[in-house]
């Protein structure tokens, strides 16, 4: 039988969770885009 966790999700939870994964990913994507521009130089 399952026990439910009692925590609700606040907007702050969502911002922190998505920021935690989104910021490093965005940094990596920007670095790659900048490197990719060499193809068009």
């Amino acid at each position, binding site marked *: *039988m*399952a*026990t*439910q*966790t*009692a*925590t*609700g*999700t606040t907007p702050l*939870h*969502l911002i922190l*969770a*998505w920021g*935690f*994964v*989104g910021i*490093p*990913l965005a*940094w*990596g*994507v920007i*670095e*790659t*885009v900048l*490197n*990719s*521009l*060499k*193809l*068009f*130089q």
Partner: protein
Amino acid sequence: MSGSLASGGVFSPGRIVAGPGFNRWMVPPAALCVHLCIGQAYAFSVFNLPMSKLLGISQSAPDDWKLTDLGWIFSIAIVVLGLSAAIGGRWVEEGGPRKAMFTAGLCWGGGFLVAALGVYMHNLWVIYLGYGVIGGIGLGLGYISPVSTLIKWFPDRPGMATGMAIMGFGGAAFIASPLSVWLMRQFSTPTHVGVAETFIVLGVVYFCFMMVGAAIVRLPAPGWLPAGYVPPTQSKKMITKNHVFVYDALKTPQFWLIWWVLCLNVTAGIGVLGQASAMSQEMFPGRVTASAAAGFVGLMSLFNMGGRFFWASVSDYIGRKNTYFVFFALGFLLYATVPHSGAAGSIALFVLCFCIIISMYGGGFATVPAYLRDMFGTRYVGAIHGMLLTAWSAAGVFGPVLVNYIRQYNVDHGVAKADAYNITMYVMAALLVVGFLCNLFITAVNERHHMVADESDAVGMAD
């Protein structure tokens, strides 16, 4: 007595059932915490050159490791990924995502630490064991750990949900590659390359990152549905409402047809992915420099990542089977067009063809969990997905071998380097025709493979 240590404590599936008010959009970041770490495997090649100069520092010494020997580290990890996902899939499914993510984090982080010891001892076998075997187990368990959880949270958009996680695997190299280079620069001295220290930092950071994912992941309560979502009342021919037991799935032709669909799609993509830099320079000699070729590889990586989210999301609207039809039909046309782009000297057409091809390579990975869910139900989809990943391992061998050997055969027989890839492209196009036919033959699973109600209820109780 749910929730006790006897029933698995904080790791048991019963302890992570979400309560009222939990937002399902917390689950994709949990999945991304794992996939953004294990996807580092795609960037492992940044260590190859530094590891070939551990003794000589500025250049390879006679006792330094050869690049061919170092190449085995990645190969072992990918093979172990497939094996551990196949063998551990049922355990992941029944033990729940938190236990699987925690174990994956231990193996992935621990693998880096053992590999660091191998660098310190200058013993390549210890690195094979650390990154290849232990890390490979972390790769396999981590890859499949969030899949069925995401599908349960997003019954209305299963393709998009799994596409988000698998997009993280494709995008992880964007973080790992510059981060690894930066760390090695920080730890290097005139007498030291800094690889071991970089491995230690990465191992600790990745372990902590994956533990955040394990902490925030939740399972939906039994019978939970998203607000406003009404399950279709009319049954769709290609989307089952039943469940197939993990090992029974192996007895169905559908499993093996999807295995070949994935294998052929990946073989075609992986073959050119590894050769993209050399291919662009040899097909357009003097016009594509090494620096521009590196930019081309980066651009392809972006399309690889974006395609995972895009195509998996599209599959929610047009269906999985139609999505793979697009991959194979459009892929065939694009592979057949590449030689003409070379003959016409059109770099733009060449780049466009490969970017779309690679988006469909990534899309193939991201769409397949939802395809399996449509065919075999949600109960064991993670475990079945794990077994299907052996197709990836097989493709990891087929693809590069096909491209390298066909190219070498042509060069040895006097074909100009610029033209040597043309036959390879036509072979890849032919593979996609076979994939198209495999996809064509996929029909709904025969109901004799479905779990009966009592079995489904029994396993459901364990949730």
